[in-house]
């Protein structure tokens, strides 16, 4: 369940953020540069999900900040109540939510800030932090039990 092949567009995360070596330098571009976010007509973007859009190579959607992380959030769909707290507060547009359901984490854009874990209301939490190198299956097999309320 963790391994979401979310039919996300192929170009997600293809660029390292430092990319652009083959592009013009800052002193070569004309003053006032224009970066088109999409290929072709962009008038209907708001009605398209990310995986349905034609992002241009200039869109940071095609870049990745995965290397910023030392810890990663792991999602346990069995405990999740789809409250969408994690979706509304993720600062990096990295909670993949479709049709009111939380599906998983976009590891190309997640920086591992842990905000989603903090705001997750379930018991035990449906999101927990693990070391970046931890296998998802191992992480899920270590999920804690429901905590008893302290009196």
């Amino acid at each position, binding site marked *: 369940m963790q391994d979401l092949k979310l039919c996300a567009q192929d170009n997600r995360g293809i660029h390292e953020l430092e990319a652009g070596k083959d592009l013009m330098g800052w002193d070569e571009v004309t003053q006032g540069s224009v970066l088109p976010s999409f290929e072709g007509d962009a008038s209907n973007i708001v009605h398209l999900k990310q995986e349905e859009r034609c992002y241009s190579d200039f869109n940071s959607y095609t870049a990745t900040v995965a290397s910023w992380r030392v810890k990663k959030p792991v999602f346990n769909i069995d405990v999740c109540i789809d409250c969408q707290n994690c979706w509304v507060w993720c600062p990096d547009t990295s909670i993949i939510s479709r049709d009111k359901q939380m599906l998983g984490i976009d590891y190309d854009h997640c920086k591992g800030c842990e*905000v989603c874990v903090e705001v997750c209301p379930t018991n035990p939490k449906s999101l927990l932090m693990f070391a970046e190198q931890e296998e998802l299956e191992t992480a899920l097999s270590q999920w804690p039990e429901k905590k008893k309320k302290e009196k």
Partner: protein
Amino acid sequence: MAITSVKNLKEFSTANDRFEGAHTLCPGCAHSMIVRELMNCTDDNLVVTTNTGCLEVSTAVYPFTSWDTSWMHIGFENAASAAGGAEAMYKARKKKGTLKDNDAPVKFVAFGGDGSTFDIGFQWLSGAFERGHDFTYICLDNENYANTGGQRSSATPIGATTSTAQAGTHSYGKKEKKKDIVAIMAAHGAPYVAQLAPNKWKSMAKGFQKALETEGPCFINTVSPCCTEWRFDPKDTINITDLATDSLMFPIYEIIDGHELNILYRPKNVIPVEEYLAAQGRYKHLFKPEYRHVIDQIQKDVDEYWEMLQRREEARV
């Protein structure tokens, strides 16, 4: 205006994000929470301008852009002028019928940090409000010039340590009180002015929608906790915002047409400001006995301001 339903979070979450990841804001930065919410609360086309600051430098790292709408940056201080200019051009072309799609709804939004809003871009902001452009200005108030290393601004509260108002043996940090930007913008006679916070996502989304729907210049100050300069763990951004709104350091309210004040959030249990201050490194020194009086001063100011807001709400003047 095509608004997204914000009845509950599940409905809101069906919005398709127009602010993309792999921007370079710090992990846990509240700026992007606020921007995402603004962009998700409407289906209309957006023309967004942004002053220089963390948001701008982090979302337009050449050759990348994180904006799925028309977005423009010119200088530190002129997002309000740029939005006003674009709006004036749009109106003129609409009248002449020379737009590509004359019926497509468009909203104009300007973002600025507190440095560019309260200080350096204030003249531009004030001018755009006086001219009455139909746009919404959103200040991302993290109470310092974060992008250049945390200098004090006129939004920095008394007692906070910053790189240019440092606490030490002879100083408790910034000596001056925070400028009341909400009152100042309301005094421009703007049709809609508010102070909102990302932890109260619903009142924030509703406030954004109200501002976008209202004709004329609207101003919203948003609390944007900055883990780097406020010195707290990035995971706590929303927890800190909770402390900010529940201690009434950041009351949530709106002012309509310059006078009609409505309080939008009344904490069930008001917590002492001390709890909010203690959660951040920038106020750590205040807990030394010699600076205790500053905490008392802050509490007194907060109590008085809340009292004033309640009276104004009641008086309806």
